[in-house]
């Protein structure tokens, strides 16, 4: 049965920040091997949806299931030890990449990569190093192994962060606007790595404003507006001939701004 059920299943997800209703009943699934791009204007709830999947943001209502492990929202804020452990298990299955990279500045690139595999997954040090070397090679940063993050460019930092997430061998990789903090000339190297991952069949969810990238790498584009999924489908359909007037308007503005 595990081959049939999706890797990520979000059901009836709501999120309030105070009186602000940011997610309004989102149902969302990601199949194994799928690359899903979340698009929509800022404030539409894309990032909140992504962060709710690994509970960095606590959803208000609804449930999240990752690779068969389901955790319900906790409207009363009464998480106990068992819930926290389940959330931790979900995080092990869903790797996360951030806009600001969030590498650990007091550790070298290699130390960043092996820290969690050793201390969280319980790998032996030489196993963890072998794993780290493999993924550093994959993102093209083998020669930066012993540098501190402060000596890397933004693009190199984000590629290191991708390698760090891969070292946990998660079931799904989630990217929260991974290129938004980068200088334009450094965006390409990160998108190339992500595109390779997508084509290799890595399950991924990407919040992005890079429409060209979405067109190239996405299996499915999900358009969000005001906390709801408005339209979704293959990129050529959603991005070229959107059905919903809100998607049409968003893409028109986007094209007008020359961003796509």
């Amino acid at each position, binding site marked *: 049965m595990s081959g049939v059920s999706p890797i990520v299943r979000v059901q009836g997800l709501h999120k309030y920040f105070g009186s602000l209703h940011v997610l309004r009943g989102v149902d969302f699934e990601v199949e194994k091997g799928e690359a899903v791009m979340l698009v929509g204007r800022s404030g539409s709830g894309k990032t909140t949806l992504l962060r709710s999947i690994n509970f960095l943001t606590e959803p208000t209502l609804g449930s999240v299931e990752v690779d068969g492990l389901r955790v319900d929202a906790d409207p009363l804020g009464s998480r106990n030890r068992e819930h926290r452990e389940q959330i*931790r298990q979900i995080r092990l299955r869903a790797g996360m990449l951030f806009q600001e990279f969030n590498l650990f500045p007091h550790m070298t690139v290699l130390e960043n990569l092996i820290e969690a595999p050793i201390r*969280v997954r319980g790998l032996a040090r030489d196993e963890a190093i072998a794993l780290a070397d493999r993924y550093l090679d994959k993102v093209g940063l083998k020669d930066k192994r012993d540098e*501190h993050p402060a000596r890397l460019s933004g693009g190199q930092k984000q590629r290191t962060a991708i390698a760090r997430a891969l070292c946990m061998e998660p079931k799904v990789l989630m990217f929260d606007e991974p290129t938004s903090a980068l200088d334009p000339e450094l965006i390409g190297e990160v998108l190339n790595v992500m595109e390779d991952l997508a084509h290799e069949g890595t399950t991924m969810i990407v919040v992005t404003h890079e429409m060209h990238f979405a067109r190239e790498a996405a299996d499915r584009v999900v358009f969000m507006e005001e906390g709801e999924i408005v339209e979704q489908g293959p990129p050529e359909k959603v991005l070229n001939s959107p059905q919903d007037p809100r998607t049409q308007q968003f893409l028109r503005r986007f094209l007008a701004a020359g961003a796509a």
Partner: protein
Amino acid sequence: MAALVATDNVDTEWIKTWAPLIVGSAGLTIVVCMASIAMAIVLAILGALGRLSANPFINGLASLYVSFVRGTPLLVQIYFIYFALPALGIILPALPAGIFALGFNYGAYLTEIFRAGIQAVPAGQREAAEALGMRESLVMRRIVLPQATRIVTPAIGNEFIAMIKDSALVSIIGVREVLWNAETAGRPRGNTLEAFIIAALIYWVLTITFSVFQERLERRMARSDRQ
């Protein structure tokens, strides 16, 4: 100084006899300060975690500690630990009592410094660590505290230099550090001028030495930040 010596007000014979003893006791002053700052740092980390804890009891206890220590004179705390605790059956010899008093006192000030340092570590660091599946205690120990320690190191240096001076207070309970030796050698013989000038000079040299040391450390840390 040379002028003083030249005026004949200064008893050079006394200095020759007693100065080496007073200077030699600088070692104990440094030992007292090292031990006290070590204790203070341990208390401060616990205190800071307490002040940031969501548990109201732990939080209250840490707040009480900081408030009480900062609201009472160090001298009273030294007296209390050395003269009052025996009434409760806790009898500490002078040296441990002095170290305990200084450590306890500075621990409270450092608590606030560590708390600020922990809060200065960007939230994204904690999120990234949590997203990698680290438990709360591991996030604190491996990710937040090492970065917070870097942030507060200059402030710990300042506190240490202040402590060198405050350590003179433990002479009153008989810890045989610099001031105790100066007083014991100088007062009975009427050589207070020489005795306290020497004591003052020793503290001055110690603080200058550690300031230079601290500046170098800070410069080195700044360099590794830039990398």
